[in-house]
């Protein structure tokens, strides 16, 4: 029983991280059909910012956290402006390849300008201490991560339901031109989407750094690969789908770790991706595929 509770908590915190990143991918995709693989490098920028701030002798963790999140937001906005705006109206494949190109450039820039090797960033270790709940031992980090994700989701829902810009973003996922015909500037809606994705990437960066304690050029690539899969399973472009997919992926991964014999532990990814492929064959559009129609014609 304790074992089950413990593994469930593990699954939740894994899933929270994927959901957080997946939401960032989904919110951009829902509005401009862009699969933003450079999201991983936005996370990495968060990590590098923490590294730089630590070396500049910033001690206050709150300031470091704010700095990292802010850097991620600025980075996301910057990428939109210089790389993704020119392909805004292109097809999804063009956008995907552009994003891969941007990701490649940034990873190698980190490598060139900072270091190819991991650099220790210990300023987030304070988030991680063991907690005993009766017979169960968990880490505070897992709780923080799950809570932060839930709060982020809640705030995002509030924003999307209550604010004009949020409503416009939901509308734009269906019919962007009609949103412009309401007099709402396209650039504003898209910038908002990127800012939110940057914010979520920044939060993710904090937890990734807190767990790994080091930053390297590929810091964000693998998490984004997983989050991307979460999006796909949930239904690309659907925000609830991204969250569902994230938690499902977390559960799958922990499930694989528990069920697979020790010697197969390394094959976890293969099994997870295979299950994902099967889900996609069953539902090619994902579990919660978003509505597609552009208003009714007749």
């Amino acid at each position, binding site marked *: 029983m304790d074992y089950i509770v413990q593994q469930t908590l593990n699954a939740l915190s894994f899933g929270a991280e994927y959901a957080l990143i997946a939401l960032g991918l989904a919110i951009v995709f829902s509005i401009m059909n862009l699969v933003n693989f450079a999201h991983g490098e936005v996370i990495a920028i968060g990590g590098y910012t923490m590294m730089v701030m630590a070396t500049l002798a910033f001690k206050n963790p709150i300031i470091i956290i704010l700095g990292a999140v802010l850097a991620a937001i600025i980075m996301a906005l910057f990428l939109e402006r210089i790389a993704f705006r020119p392909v805004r109206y292109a097809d999804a494949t063009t956008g995907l390849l552009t994003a891969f190109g941007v990701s490649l450039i940034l990873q190698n820039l980190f490598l060139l300008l900072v270091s190819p090797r991991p650099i220790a960033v210990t300023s987030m270790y304070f988030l991680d201490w063991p907690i005993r709940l009766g017979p169960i031992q968990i880490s505070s980090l897992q709780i923080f991560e799950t809570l932060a994700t839930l709060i982020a989701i809640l705030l995002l829902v509030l924003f999307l339901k209550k604010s004009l810009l949020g409503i416009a973003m939901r509308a734009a996922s*269906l019919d962007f031109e009609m949103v412009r015909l*309401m007099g709402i500037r396209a650039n504003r809606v898209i910038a908002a989407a990127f800012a939110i994705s940057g914010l979520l990437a920044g939060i993710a960066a904090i937890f990734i750094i807190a767990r790994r304690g080091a930053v390297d050029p590929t810091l964000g690539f693998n998490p984004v690969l997983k989050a991307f899969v979460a999006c796909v399973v949930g239904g690309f472009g659907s925000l609830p789908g991204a969250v569902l997919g994230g938690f499902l992926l977390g559960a799958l991964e922990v499930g694989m770790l528990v069920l697979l014999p020790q010697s197969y532990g390394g094959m976890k990814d293969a099994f997870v991706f295979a299950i994902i492929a099967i889900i996609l064959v069953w539902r090619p559009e994902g579990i919660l595929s978003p509505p597609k129609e552009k208003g*009714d014609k007749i």
Partner: protein
Amino acid sequence: MTVVPLVLLSLQKTNMLEVKNLSVFYGRIKVVHSIDFSVKKGSCVALLGPNGAGKTSTISSILGTVSSSGSIRFLDKDISKMHTEERVKLGISIAPEGRRVFSNLSVFENLFIGSAIREDRKAADEEINAWLKTFPILDERRDQAAGTLSGGEQQMLTIARALMSRPKILLLDEPSLGLAPRITRQVFELIQDLKAQGMTILLVEQNATEALKLADFSFILNSGNVIASGSSEEILNKGDLMSSLTGVEA
């Protein structure tokens, strides 16, 4: 052809929208060929013509969602180079073809987003409530997704949404398309009311009979050219032409 310039001359001072030498392109294909027309303040002007005549292309070019050349003057300002959003802010609003309600937003949110450019939040909220009172069915579904509405209800919502921005001119693109006759009548009654309240309207319609009843002045388009224009009476007098193009029996 001799009548038009005289009429235009007499309207010159109060033209709200003036389109000259307008051509519309889809890629390299030209679908509207150098047409001229204008809409006087407080009047209802209809663009009529068969399918594929270029009516929707024309109306879309006024808001800048298709690429065009020529001059488009609104309130004596050349708007032809402006972004769509700026044109909307100047006071042009559209109820587009196929309605295009935001089917994933609630009825209320559709109206709310319609008022996006307004600063007077309180007055806008009251106006939303007024619309909901006008159409009780919309009030009933206030918090339901607009996609669940019927075609006629969606059309009412679309027009109300377009009006939420307090436009100076309202563009209506095929408001009766695909609606049952009874609903069509309701839609045209609504347009009649708006006209009576002094709203300037540019109406695109295939249903020429109803449109001619409403319009003060009409332009007939065919294959991207204006082939005739005049008051409803004059149009109806051109019998043969009309019956071939619009199916209206003179």
